[in-house]
């Protein structure tokens, strides 16, 4: 009886020690943030993801980047892993505005907050908050410059991004909100080049066969603008045809400086990433109500002000 009593006491003490220890380690354990990004094949997204990771680590969190390679199935796997591994928040740069909704919902249903960076989801309940560039307004401004540069008259081509991405349509709609008000502006072709440089080059080469007399090309991102520029250089028409992009990527800013691209619209991925991490931080500290969408300004970069900008709006 005495021995049994001693054993029970020892077990109780050990149990207490273990339980105290586990509480301590739980308290001291840093929160983990998963950064799920659409692709690491584009330097813009690499910068966005790395800035978010760095900002999270500066705030004392553990952060890991997952590359979805523009594939919603792979993105789904990342979400399943993030939930299973007990991540405390997810910063999502979605692969598809519709296709990523189910993935984000998985995490939300598991009680993990999801903060979208740059790419919107078409369901407000699929994310805790969405931090997005004001692409529409940026392209309204670019559309104004476009029409002024062509003196309200000319033929142009529009290269669209991924058709499943809201940014593609926000940019296109902003641009057309201005350009379509001018009846002598004629769009001779509108085609998707998937935000891809090589595809843009091929698409424009084939458009130029049918429409050799275009005056300008509007591209939904800088990668496509650089591809379009390459096609024009190859055709010996780079001096005659104006090219406009969107993003503020390193090569685009350099091209504006060198007299290549006519303009780009600078996005600020650093601000988007920092805001997403700051929102996660507020969530961990108890905040539960967030604005559904937070807009981040974009700025028009032209040959006259390009010296005031660095790529990706780095500060």
């Amino acid at each position, binding site marked *: 009886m005495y021995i049994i009593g001693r054993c029970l006491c020892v077990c109780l003490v050990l149990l207490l020690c273990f339980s105290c220890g586990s509480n301590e380690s739980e308290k001291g354990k840093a929160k983990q943030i998963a950064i799920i990004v659409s692709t690491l094949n584009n330097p813009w997204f690499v910068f966005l993801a790395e800035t978010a990771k760095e900002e999270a680590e500066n705030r004392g969190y553990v952060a890991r980047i997952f590359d979805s390679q523009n594939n919603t199935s792979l993105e789904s796997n990342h979400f399943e892993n993030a939930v299973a591994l007990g991540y405390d928040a997810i910063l999502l740069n979605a692969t598809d505005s519709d296709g990523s909704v189910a993935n984000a919902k998985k995490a939300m249903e598991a009680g993990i907050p999801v903060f979208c960076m740059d790419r919107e989801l078409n369901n407000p309940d699929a994310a805790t908050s969405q931090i997005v560039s004001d692409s*529409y307004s940026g392209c309204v401004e670019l559309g104004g410059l476009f*029409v002024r540069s062509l003196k309200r008259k000319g033929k142009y081509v529009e290269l669209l991004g991924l058709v499943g991405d809201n940014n593609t349509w926000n940019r296109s709609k902003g641009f057309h909100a201005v350009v379509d008000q001018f009846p002598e502006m004629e769009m001779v072709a509108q085609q998707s080049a998937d935000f891809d440089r090589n595809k843009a080059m091929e698409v424009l080469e084939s458009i130029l066969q049918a429409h050799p007399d275009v005056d300008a090309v509007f591209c939904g991102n800088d990668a496509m603008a650089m591809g379009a520029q390459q096609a024009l250089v190859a055709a010996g028409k780079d001096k005659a045809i104006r090219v406009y992009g969107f993003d503020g990527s390193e090569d685009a800013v350099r091209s504006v400086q060198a007299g290549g691209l006519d303009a780009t619209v600078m996005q600020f991925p650093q601000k988007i990433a920092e805001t997403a991490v700051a929102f996660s931080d507020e969530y961990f500290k108890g905040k539960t109500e967030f604005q559904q969408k937070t*807009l981040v300004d974009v700025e028009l970069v032209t040959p006259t002000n390009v010296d005031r900008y660095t790529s990706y709006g780095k500060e």
Partner: protein
Amino acid sequence: MYGISALIGLVLLYLSFDIVPLDERAETNAGEEVAEMVAVYFEETLPAVMLDAPEPCSLSKMLKTEDSSGWEKYGQQNAIGNRYYFLVSGQGRIRTVQDDFITVTFGEGDAECTFRISTVYIFGNEIRDASGKLQLKEVGSLPTFNSLSESINERVRTQVVAPFLKTVKVGKTIQMQGAFALNRRLGWDPDVEIKPIRLQFID
């Protein structure tokens, strides 16, 4: 048998595609809700906030200095970033009539200043955002919020600027209410254009 299978296969293949014209996705309508919000904005909200709008020369003087009080007191923001929107109201004389804008001189003597007032490129969020009374979180949807700017600008182009341009003349005095945007990081822009809200000849 093979024919029926092939037919079923073709039907299934057809049903597996969702064909949507490219421009249909970009289409959103500024519906009745937007029209109603714009009417209230012009008839009630703007007249009330315009009572406190600064005179163009005093505001531009403040914004040209190192002191940030003008930006904070009169500037409005609707996004994270450097863009600030301002309302202005004042009486001035038309100096020139250009293709895209008119230039108007406000104030007198040392306090005189000249601004461009857009007559063609009336697009963007200046008029929507400069009052600080229309916020995305209250409007809810981003497409609706964007439609508000489109409808506001269209109303100005058709109901304010079009009749004004019919009788515009150098030397005429006008009462002007308007809005403009500046980038705080880049500072004052001498080519900034005011988007008009109200233009009225007073002589």
